[in-house]
């Protein structure tokens, strides 16, 4: 039955998350101001909090499936802050590649490490197939050379799954995942990016200068299948809905703030009144609220149809496209409604404007999502619709 109401258990979980997020938010300005510091893996207040799901038994048929509810939980997390978390999980995106492409032995060896993924390069934007980082076999070892940018958690991670090509003639089939651990000679974190927003976030540029890794650091087999490449792409794509959810979380934070402050000035939405009876500000608030609601529902829908398995491509791209757009425009419009005061760093709303902008850029830009959607509805390959 179509239903969008929350059960008591659902509400308990969301309330618990909200409580954590309110605490997290106290740290938001600090790590925005001090971008050279990384937020800790856990905040001091973590002792007072458990996972919001803990102590809440799942009731089949009454409670929202956890993989669906998790959209709202994660949105509330980002509503608290994008980069500061109450407690960071030990996994990076690279752990997904390890699980998917690694042998049992490889998995056993590295599964306790936090692994990032290093994919993007200065010369390849949205096209992973044009990777220039090379891995050349030399006896029992691989020798890696190249530069990787926009590596999420690249500073914090203990190791990195580096996408490198063993044979450019093979195209994407030649691209293999290599585990490169921090401290290996020639492997260096060049710098943490200085960004407009999400400054608590750890985005690194990595340099590989004749890094020699043992032969078994290549995850999976060195054949001409695309398995390794696919494992990397799948792990990266897993970030897509996560970024979308963060987008609506940040947008909601901005709207909540805007509503609250305008209410203090005597301006709020009166529901039920037709357009003729609304003020311009009320109308704009309604439009922003509808956008956020639509983006949230899109993400819930994508989670729902994916049924707890890998996120399905089309609904996820649809949801991500909308969420990325809404995160941009909602924060832009909220600031305009608030007037000059919203620009001041006294308040977090100017930070949300900066933070939100990332969500239409990574996890696949809005343009990439639209390409995926268009190809899917048209039945086109990427060659037919490049």
């Amino acid at each position, binding site marked *: *039955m*179509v*239903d*969008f*109401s*929350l*059960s008591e258990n*659902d509400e308990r979980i969301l309330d618990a998350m909200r409580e954590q997020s309110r605490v997290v938010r106290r740290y938001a300005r600090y790590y925005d101001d001090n971008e050279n510091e990384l937020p800790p893996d856990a905040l001091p207040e973590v002792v007072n909090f458990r996972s919001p799901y803990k102590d809440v038994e799942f009731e089949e*048929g*009454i*409670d*929202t*499936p956890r993989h*669906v*509810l998790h959209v709202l939980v994660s949105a509330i997390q980002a509503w608290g802050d994008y980069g500061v978390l109450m407690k960071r999980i030990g996994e990076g995106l690279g752990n997904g590649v390890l699980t998917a492409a690694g042998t049992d032995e490889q998995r056993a060896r590295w599964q306790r490490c936090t692994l990032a993924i290093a994919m993007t390069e200065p010369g390849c934007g949205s096209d992973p197939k044009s990777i220039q980082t090379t891995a050349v076999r030399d006896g029992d070892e691989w020798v890696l050379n190249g530069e990787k940018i926009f590596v999420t958690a690249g500073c914090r991670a203990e190791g990195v799954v580096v996408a490198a090509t063993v044979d450019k003639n093979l195209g994407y089939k030649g691209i293999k995942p290599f585990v490169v651990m921090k401290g290996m000679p020639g492997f260096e974190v060049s710098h943490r990016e200085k960004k407009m927003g999400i400054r608590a976030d750890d985005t690194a540029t990595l340099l590989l200068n004749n890094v020699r890794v043992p032969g078994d650091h290549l995850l999976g087999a060195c054949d001409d299948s695309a398995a390794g490449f696919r494992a990397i792409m799948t792990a990266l794509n897993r970030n897509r809905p996560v970024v979308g959810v963060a987008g609506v979380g940040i947008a909601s934070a901005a709207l909540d703030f805007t509503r609250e402050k305008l209410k203090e000035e005597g301006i709020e939405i009166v*529901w*039920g*009144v*037709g*357009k*003729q*009876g609304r003020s311009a500000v009320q109308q704009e608030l*309604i*439009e922003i*609220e*509808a*956008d956020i*609601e*639509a*983006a949230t*529902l*899109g993400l*819930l*829908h994508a989670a*729902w*149809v994916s049924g707890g398995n890998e996120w399905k491509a089309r*609904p996820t791209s*649809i949801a991500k*496209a*909308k969420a990325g757009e809404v995160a941009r425009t909602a924060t832009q419009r909220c600031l305009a409604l608030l007037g000059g005061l919203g620009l001041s760093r006294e308040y977090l709303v100017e930070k949300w404007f900066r933070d939100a902008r990332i969500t239409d850029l990574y996890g696949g830009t809005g*343009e990439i*999502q*639209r*390409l995926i*959607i*268009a*190809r899917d*509805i*048209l*039945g*086109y390959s990427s060659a*037919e*619709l490049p």
Partner: protein
Amino acid sequence: MISFALTDEQRLLRETVRKFAQTELREVARACDEASRLPDELLATVADLGLVAGVMPESFGGGGSDRSPVTNTLLAEELGAGDSSLGLAAVAPALFAIPVLEFGTEAQKEQLLPMFSEPGFHAASMALHEAHFGFDAAALRTVAAPAPGGYRLTGSKRFVPLGDRASHILVIARLEESGLEGLEAFVVPRDSKGLECAPEPEKTLGLQALPTAALELDGVEVASEARLGGENGIDGARLINLCRVAGAAFAVGASRTVLEYATAYAKDRLVSGRPIAQKQAIAFMLADMEVEVNAMRHLVWKAASELEQRRDASRMATLASDYVRRKSMEIADKGVQILGGHGYIRDYPMEMWYRNMRALTILDGVGIV
């Protein structure tokens, strides 16, 4: 719990209505638009489908299905996807039947509902829209003044669906308060004294196959029993929300069809030997349309679900209808643009959808879930 799952019954019903809409409505849509004609045969088929009778209580000869705004929303999307004009005509009697079912006293239900379960199509309607520019349901001008033994209704109504043939019309008027809370509904038989009911003076931009009427209420006297819900009256906000969601659901269906048609066209249409769909400018329009059809549908579902659960749905109905009003027009606009010159000539259906979409998202009170 959050769920996007339809019940088996909903799936089945949706499939039936989809088949009907995609064949019987869509096939005659253009001819009916050109001739401003609603075929009697079509109404006969509609009656057989039992779209209205099905949800009437068994005690009044109906099918006894549960009252479900969500189910009606699903069907509205299908009807809108077939043809909004004919689709609205098909379910217009619900404009009368559903408010009676929801807000009527037992006596009113007993008196007014059985007619919808009789064989054949029974036309009845609701009169909400009024005869002035910038109409706002929350600022109604038609008034119901208390009169000896009942009320006296005065006002001008427009665009009453099937007003040309409706046996009864539910006239929405303001009793005391202003705003949606002040709305009341009065059962007015078409032969009432002081009631003038004439077909719309001119055709309309869109929805041309839907016959609509203009009503002049010159102090029409009705008994106090004619007030829906008796002394308690109706929940005006809920009535308007049920209507807003219906209009939005029709627009979702119409938008879906625009997208499907434009997609197929863009793949077929060659320029310099290649389909125009291979141009990013076109492909991205299609992608945007797909994103928005989904967004609109989700908002409408959520609003319908709140109505089904009898929560206060004013927020969601406002968000959904306002969003759909903007986005569905953009979708039809892009549909025309993708077809280029073909989007402008009546050999293709797109221009009709462009007109219908504008009408659909402006007219208040021509559908109800």
